């Protein structure tokens, strides 16, 4: 392992191209566990995902508030030395059980897969260069079909720069997919995991990535189910994710007026966040509105805080959706993900679903969502987590999303 220190921070590179299971039939597995003992939970989930097979890549998703070190020990016991990436999430999903905070392990292996993992640290100091760096791992792949899987830090900010950097190196021929690590809407403790032959580390302010090469196609589907409503507004003053003014007025005042509440509601952070999560903004874009989730507001300054950047001068709409619209995204994303498979049945699916959707849908809606995904997936196992930002790109150059469902289908 080499360590290089650049101007913007420390970069660490993993260098594993998995070929151990080259003769094995290609496979995809998922497992879940709600065992209260973290080590047991990790081991159980991993055992279920691998089912005795030799994995090329392991993905681990879990709540941020558990003993992740112990959990990862349990996973490593079942998949020692296997390239591993993972992160914390709001809740987690896998075949065979409800979506809830739990440990989910997903794995793939067998013939026709190439894997190269990588990571970058201190990403908040330079998301673009972090994205460029991890995307370089794609260059090592020789497979016909490629995917760059990214698990980023939801608190790092400027996540679009991460995707821009990754795209600048990976290019238009490599789809991007992934999600941003989350905690339970606390916005304070998001974790990323990186494991290799030397063990598994728990990281913060990092991006972990897996460049996946495959002999069979890989598809990415993206859908959100939100629609714009009312009259648009211009972000007359904004920087990064902070929107100071809309149409020349304090953004909080405009937003509160639009949703019919008093601006003082923003004093209760949790209450405001839960309210605002269901009333996102949409940036006017060619492909439809690019959603921005509001997760905070400042009564003092009148600014709104969004998870992702809102460019100054951008045209914005209030967005609305309903249960049906949100659930239809499962069908839409699935269809888009499996279309590139050229008729081949999916081997397995990864799902990166926005945590705000989890909140918006509620237990019944989430159950329905899982039911739909299970029906759609059929025999193909699936795994994923509820994120603080979704990454999905197969067309165009933009890939950072919010309040969106991203599905990856492997054939």
């Amino acid at each position: 392992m080499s360590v290089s220190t650049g101007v913007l921070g420390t970069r660490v590179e993993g260098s594993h191209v998995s070929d151990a299971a080259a003769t094995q039939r290609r496979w995809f597995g998922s497992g879940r566990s709600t065992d209260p003992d973290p080590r047991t939970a990790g081991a159980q989930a991993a055992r279920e995902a691998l089912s005795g097979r030799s994995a090329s890549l392991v993905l681990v998703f879990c709540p941020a508030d558990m003993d992740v070190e112990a959990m990862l020990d349990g996973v490593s016991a079942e998949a020692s030395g296997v390239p591993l990436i993972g992160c914390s999430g709001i809740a987690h999903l896998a075949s065979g059980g409800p979506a809830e905070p739990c440990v989910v392990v997903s794995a793939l292996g067998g013939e026709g897969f190439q894997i190269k993992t990588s990571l970058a640290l201190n990403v908040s100091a330079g998301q673009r260069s972090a994205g460029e760096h991890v995307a370089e791992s794609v260059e090592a792949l020789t497979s016909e079909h490629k995917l760059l899987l990214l698990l980023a830090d939801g608190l790092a900010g400027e996540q679009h720069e991460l995707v821009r950097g990754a795209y600048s190196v990976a290019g238009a021929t490599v789809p991007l997919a992934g999600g941003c690590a989350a905690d339970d809407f606390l916005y304070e403790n998001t974790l990323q995991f990186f494991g290799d032959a030397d063990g598994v580390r728990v990281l913060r302010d990092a991006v972990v990535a897996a460049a996946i090469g495959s002999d069979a196609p890989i598809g990415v589907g993206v859908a959100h189910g939100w629609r714009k409503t009312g009259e648009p507004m211009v972000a007359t003053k904004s920087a990064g994710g902070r929107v100071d003014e809309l149409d020349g007025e304090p953004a909080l005042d405009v937003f509160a007026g639009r949703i019919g509440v008093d601006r003082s509601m923003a004093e209760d952070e949790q209450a405001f966040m839960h309210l605002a999560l269901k009333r996102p903004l949409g940036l006017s874009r060619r492909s439809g509105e690019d959603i921005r989730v509001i997760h905070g507001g400042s009564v003092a300054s009148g600014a709104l805080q969004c998870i992702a950047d809102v460019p100054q001068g951008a045209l914005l709409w209030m967005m609305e959706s309903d249960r049906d619209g949100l659930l239809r995204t499962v069908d839409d994303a699935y269809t888009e993900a499996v279309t590139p498979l050229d008729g081949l049945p999916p081997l397995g699916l990864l799902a990166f679903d926005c945590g705000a959707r989890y909140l918006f849908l509620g237990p019944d809606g989430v159950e329905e969502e899982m039911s739909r995904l299970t029906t759609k997936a059929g025999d193909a196992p699936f795994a994923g987590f509820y994120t603080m930002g979704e990454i999905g790109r197969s067309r165009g150059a933009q890939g950072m999303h919010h309040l969106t469902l991203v599905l990856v289908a492997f054939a």
Partner: protein
Amino acid sequence: MDYHWSIHQLTEYFEAVTSQDDEWVAIRGAVERAVEALGAELGLVIRGDDIVACVGLGRATPPVSTISPALRGAAFIEIPALGSLHAVAAGLDDDRVEHLVICRIDDAFSGEERQLLQGMARVLGLALRSLRALRVERTLRTERELEAAERLRLVDTLGSRQRLLESMLTIQRAISHRAPSQTILDAVTTGASQLLGGAFLALVIASPVDGQHRVVSSSAPGSDDAGYTTLVMATAAEAVAIDQLVTRTDQLVDGAAHTALAAPVHIEGQTAGSLVTVAKSDDADVDDWRATLTAFAEQASVALTDARTVEAMRDAYQDLLTGLPNRALFMDRLNHSLQSAARQGVGITVLFIDLDRFKDVNDSLGHAAGDELLAWFADRIRESVRGEDTAARLGGDEFAILLERTVGDSAGLAVARRLTGALREPLRLTDREIFASASVGIASSGSCAGTADELLRNADIAMYRAKRTGGGDALVYEPTMHTEAIEGLELGPDLYHAASRGELRLEFQPIIELRTGAAVGVEALVRWKHSTRGMIQPNVFIPLAERNGVITEIGEWVLRQGCTAAATWRASSIPDLRISINVSARQLDDPAFADLVAVVLTETALPASALTLEITESVLMRDPERAIDLIRPLKALGVRLAIDDFGTGFSSLAYLQRLPADQLKIDKVFIDAIETSVEGSAIVRTVADLARTLSMQTVAEGIETRQQHTILQTLSCDLGQGYHFARPLKAEAVPGFFAGRDRPATADAGRLPLGRRIGIASEQPA
């Protein structure tokens, strides 16, 4: 209509690109944002034969030969890794050395997207120019000077950039708030003017209707004291012609040299006009202005490309019903033509055309029929003008024609004749055939000092004068008409007091039994002798009285005076005399009118059967059911009813049958025709037969010749009146006239009409 996403991207893009202080970062950021905004996969900046930046192929850079077809306008390029992509290119500046090229897998680029890319390329060019200028300065100055200058320049650049950004945000908000198109365009010119230190700014656009260039927005609207117009329009035209920023210098009215810059403006990718600034050459910082003007021109382009704006502009100039230019466009052209004609020493002529009795068509046949008439008439107008002339609908039933390069009034009269000739044929509306007619006023540019408003007003006055003669006429403006029109306006207040001041008097036109020649009655006609102006023509003050409502008071005065006179004559020497009195629509509508008539009959002791109330056919047919209700109490008194001006309204035979009328007064128009055409006679005979069937008498109006009298007798018309028999008489002359008319008699040569001129015969002053 939904917003097109593209029109809102440029400000975002501008902010992102111009915030960079490193040239390479600016270029890369610009390409990335352009690729993202357009949903594309590949973006490049090419300088000559070098690819300066490439986004979308990872670390690889394609050979420039694979990209250069896009610079030559190719819609597709081939990239080995990606296959065939839709491609579009835009130059970063006028030199077209550097280009921004965007390529997309899925869809072709729309007009709006091309427009957006052009704006993005120009903004990148603007940013690079500033950055390169900074770099040049850095290498030319000493370190200390460099620091100071750079600080100043950065501050200035930042300040300018901030102001530019704020202006663009203002424009963005106007667009997003769906502000009226004019508001958006004014925001562009105002913003640009402010950025250019208050310099004059104009946005010149080719009209989507006729292609003529016009100033649609200006930082100093309405005035051209400095004489900018010629320089502005010439510079704008050149910028449009070559689709590049243009600079021109000229000496203007103040003797100083002035410089104009024009940056082309595009709508849906096509050059459509330009943004022009003018200032004294000493004050103009052309190099500095070039970039700002270009940025605002691009902003104007995206605003204008918004389809909604294009539509609104089209609607702003075109009358929707007829497709003719509207008043705004007509006045604009008239202004333009007047100035041009003055310079070339030629004349222009304006025709003001008004459909006669259009309100009656609307009221009788419905608004759909009215619209059909207007559209049909618009087609007749179109057919009567040359391609270089302009026909317009001013509104309502008013139309105008502008004839270019005329000498005198002959061209105007010729067009008027063509129009009135086209109107001789009947028109079928709904299931009715009607005869339309129009009054035409003609005024040429020699008739006034030279403003468009004056010329149109003169034509209007002439038209109004023509209408007063009965319609279907064309008159050329004379200055005396203006005086008359002014008088009409000033007479209103005096008319209110005319009765109380004793300025009104009645004259009486005899009604003759055609078979015997005997006088059987009189029609009372009101006259007004103004205390200072003398006799005011009835065709001036009667319409005025109807408009301002004093017709009710005048009508009551006429009723009383007429009944009093008739009663007196009946008591003295003409026991069987009948008197006919005209009743206006307002009087008929008055629920107290029947009571008034009853009171007057009682007070004057005039038998009801001696009184005939004349109501025009068009008034009765406004609402026939209501008319029947209104007439019923009058008939109950025993008075007679005459349908006046019959043949000019739109009677339904069903209602005619139900109306309790005693007389049909055949309009003069038909009486005029009996000498000249067989059809004319046939119509009168038909009306007479109809009247007889309905047990009504016929009265022929406006008999002017012996021949007409003779023919009417053969057509079994009962009664008649007109100059052939007598002009309206003063009260004191009536008994004497009746004394000589109890047997067939020839007309008194001294009382023959003055001629056959169509219109009002001149009245001899009292």
